[in-house]
């Protein structure tokens, strides 16, 4: 039954832009808090009319995922009932991460709105999906929730592209993700940002945790406050000012220039040695192999990760309470970088004795 999945959708909203270039939050069901509304209005590209139209944008705020589809209204539609509207966006907020599913769904809703000119039809579709998991779409067939598996969403990001852009430096991203550090990515275009950042959590496949992903963040107080409450995250910024905010990141990725910088405070924790070189080689070789798909690359990486974690777990077994201490690590006489890495990794995996 579609029951556990349908509870994932939280609300649907409608933002319109009219001929006076005024953007309004026009309608929503069931309800959206004022703070979230503010955030969504800022994410929706209708407010910044200098940039182009971003057809589909998604992000996370306080563990709520939002998916925004924007459409420009062409002249002869039923929407002429709402005569002043030039563009509108449909926002779907949910608890889970599945951009493809919600992109398709919001497209369906957009077409409904254009055709009927009233949000009531949209709501019918929304409730149909909520209760039954199916929605009749005017064009090609119906929209079924079960067509969109969450695993597919996780694997949709292309790790191959990441590795091809950064080569051996991908190991920095891998280390940062493993140690639950804060990564900030910058790119002036939202779409490229979303594409890139959604692939990063796949490097730590054993956790399957996409809640660390905040792909589209602005430098506003409420959003930064939200980021500060998370221990480790992958955050994407369009604003180039973020490179000056060294308090926000441990690793800074400048996507257009393909540069990765580690901030001073994190350099000590992110020191890398032979172990990292090995892992890096595995990643690069796997990605360069043209025959292997993204899924297979991720599998290779996760195999290596699991080795390390198994090692760590065995170490933990030997200690009291199955918790590792620094002394136990020191006894093994690992090289200092590896020891450092394992120490921090233990903390990340909650195997460290407090």
């Amino acid at each position: 039954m579609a029951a556990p999945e349908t509870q994932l959708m939280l609300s649907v909203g409608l933002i319109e832009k009219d001929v006076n270039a005024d953007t309004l939050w026009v309608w929503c069901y069931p309800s959206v808090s004022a703070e979230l509304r503010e955030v969504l209005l800022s994410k929706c590209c209708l407010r910044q009319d200098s940039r182009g139209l971003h057809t589909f944008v998604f992000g996370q705020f306080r563990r709520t995922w939002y998916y925004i589809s924007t459409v420009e209204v062409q002249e002869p539609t039923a929407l002429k009932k709402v005569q002043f509207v030039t563009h509108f966006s449909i926002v779907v907020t949910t608890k889970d991460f599945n951009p493809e599913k919600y992109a398709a769904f919001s497209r369906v809703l957009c077409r409904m709105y254009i055709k009927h000119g009233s949000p009531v039809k949209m709501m019918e579709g929304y409730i149909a999906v909520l209760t039954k998991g199916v929605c009749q779409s005017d064009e090609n067939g119906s929209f079924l929730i079960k067509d969109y598996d969450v695993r597919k969403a996780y694997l949709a990001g292309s790790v191959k592209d990441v590795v091809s852009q950064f080569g051996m430096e991908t190991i920095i991203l891998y280390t940062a993700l493993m140690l639950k550090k804060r990564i900030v990515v910058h790119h002036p275009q939202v779409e490229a940002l979303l594409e890139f950042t959604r692939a990063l959590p796949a490097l730590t496949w054993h956790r399957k945790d996409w809640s660390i992903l905040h792909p589209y963040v602005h430098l506003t107080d409420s959003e930064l406050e939200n980021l500060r409450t998370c221990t480790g995250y992958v955050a994407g910024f369009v604003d180039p000012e973020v490179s000056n905010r060294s308090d926000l990141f441990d690793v800074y990725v400048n996507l257009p220039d393909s540069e990765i910088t580690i901030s001073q405070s994190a350099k000590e924790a992110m020191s890398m040695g032979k172990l990292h070189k090995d892992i890096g080689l595995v990643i690069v070789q796997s990605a360069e192999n043209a025959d292997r798909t993204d899924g297979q690359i991720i599998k290779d990486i996760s195999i290596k990760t699991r080795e390390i974690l198994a090692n760590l777990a065995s170490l933990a077994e030997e200690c009291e309470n199955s918790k590792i201490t620094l002394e136990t690590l020191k006894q093994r006489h690992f090289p200092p970088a590896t020891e450092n890495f394992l120490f921090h990794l233990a903390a990340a995996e909650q195997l460290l004795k407090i």
Partner: protein
Amino acid sequence: MDEVDKILIHSLRQTGTDVGKDVQSVKHFTSELIVEAVVRCLRVIDPALGSGLCPSLPPGMSARFRVGMSLAQACQDLGYKGEIGYQTFLYSNEPEIRSLLMFLVEKLPRESAEASDQPAGKSALLQKSIAAQIKAQLALPWLSPSCRLPLLCKTQNPGPSHSFHSQTLSLPHCLKVPGKKQLKGKPQNTQDPHNLLSLDFLPPVTAQPSQHASVPASLLEQHAGELSAAQEWENEWNSQGLLSRLTPEEYRSRKRARLQKRIEEQLRTAAQTRPDTLGAHGSGSDLTELLQSFGGSPLIGDILAKGTRFTHTEKFTFTEEPEKAAKQMAAAANSLPSSHQSEEDLQARQQEELASLQQQLQQLSLSLEEVGGDMRQLTVSIHQVSDELKQKELSNTEEEDSVRVKKQTIYLLPDGENNLAKLQALVEGSAERVVNLAAQWEKHRAPLIDEHRRLKELCSNQEIESSRKLSEIKELHEKISQSAEEAKKKEGLYKQLITEFENLPKDISRSAYTARILEIVGNIRKQKEEITKILSDTKELQKEINSLTGKLDRTFAVTDELVFKDAKKDESVRKSYKYLAALHENCTQLIQTIEDTGTIMREIRDLEEQIDTENGKKTVSNLEKILEDYKAIRQENSALAAKIREA
């Protein structure tokens, strides 16, 4: 002609020619007078040209002849187009003299041009008088102090000059805004809104500076400062303030807030650039400490990353250690015995001390490492713990949710099938209801949104209107200021011109001249009209004459032929033909005679005019004079020849 002569005589008198009071017209000018007038005019027009000429006519004839020639040459050099020679001066006649004098008077430079060229305002007048004074003072020769007269003492003494030294003055600000009690540097008096009290306690500005000599400097500076501040505010208000549509107070407060924000940002970036590693020194850390000492504002607290609380405490503990070590070293230095002991003992003691110090150093570095390690451990554990906490909280909420749902399902489980069907029906029913409600809400919502949009549009239109009005207001302001300036200028000019006018000599009445000129112009215009009329009449007449003549010829030709044709046959017709020819000829003669009469009358008129002009030329008297002068020259020639022969 009288008026013209009067003007000529007046101008000549101005050039310096001594024209007697009884001489009223050019007719009465003697040769001497003419020569004097011309020479003086030439001197005024062109000093180079006129300097070689003498105003008085020499007695000798040849000399006179020469003078006449040179004057004629000079006038021709100036550009006089008429015929001129020595005879114009020696044997003058009225029209020639008049035209020459008019030419020269026109050539006279306009003396009054300078004064009216630059209608200067009050400040320019002041500057001019200052310049004149300074020029006069500079023109005076410098005398040594002992020889100076008291008047010169004042101007040539270096005493009065002081260096520009200004002091800040205190002015009660409440001169403009009643109620403000901003008294700089004065103890706060009672809460007295009236400024009378403060005026009593504040000494006048002339008494405020410590040195009397710096009073003007201080006043100038104060005034310049206030003026420039006021101008800047004017400019800013007119350019940005009006655009922002705020009242002046609101605008000022917003500006202040904006500036404060910028200062905060600058401080924040400066504080952030300090590297927050162990043992960081430099101005950045001092800045953060300073800011913290201000009361630990939350902004600054956010800047410091979480972990650096440890770096801070550590730094403080470490700053104590070197101090302790330094103290110890000082104590050790003091305990060095100053008495003379053997070298070896001294060395041994030094070695001991060195060893102990090194030990201490090792201990310190060990403890440093330990603490570093502890810190790392703690940081990492904090991360881990907070992570765990977060995860546990999340799983908690999830579990709670699922527990709730499961409870409900368990409650409904016994009658599973039914309840399932009921639930589905319930869900469908609520879905329908919700959709219904949405439709109803839509009915309310759509018009409200439309209304909102319409009002927004109205608002923006009004804004456009108001910005347009603002720009109009600005233009009007500019126009007002421009007109005010112009009015001021014109008033100054008017006053100046009035004073000048009062100072002008009143011997010639310009209004009479201008009235007469306008009259003449009117007359000329009328005459021109009449002439044109007459001309057109003449043309008409001529045309008529021509057409009649033509008609006559044609008629005669036709008649002639006709009659001639019949004349061959009939005798009476022949006679009538003869009569016709005779008639035609007589009439032609008549017409010819009339035309001749007219021509002769015109000739008579012309000749009469010529006679008049010739009469005016006083040719007879001039001829007599010429004969006399010729005789005189001949005599002179013979006298000179005799002298040469004798010598």
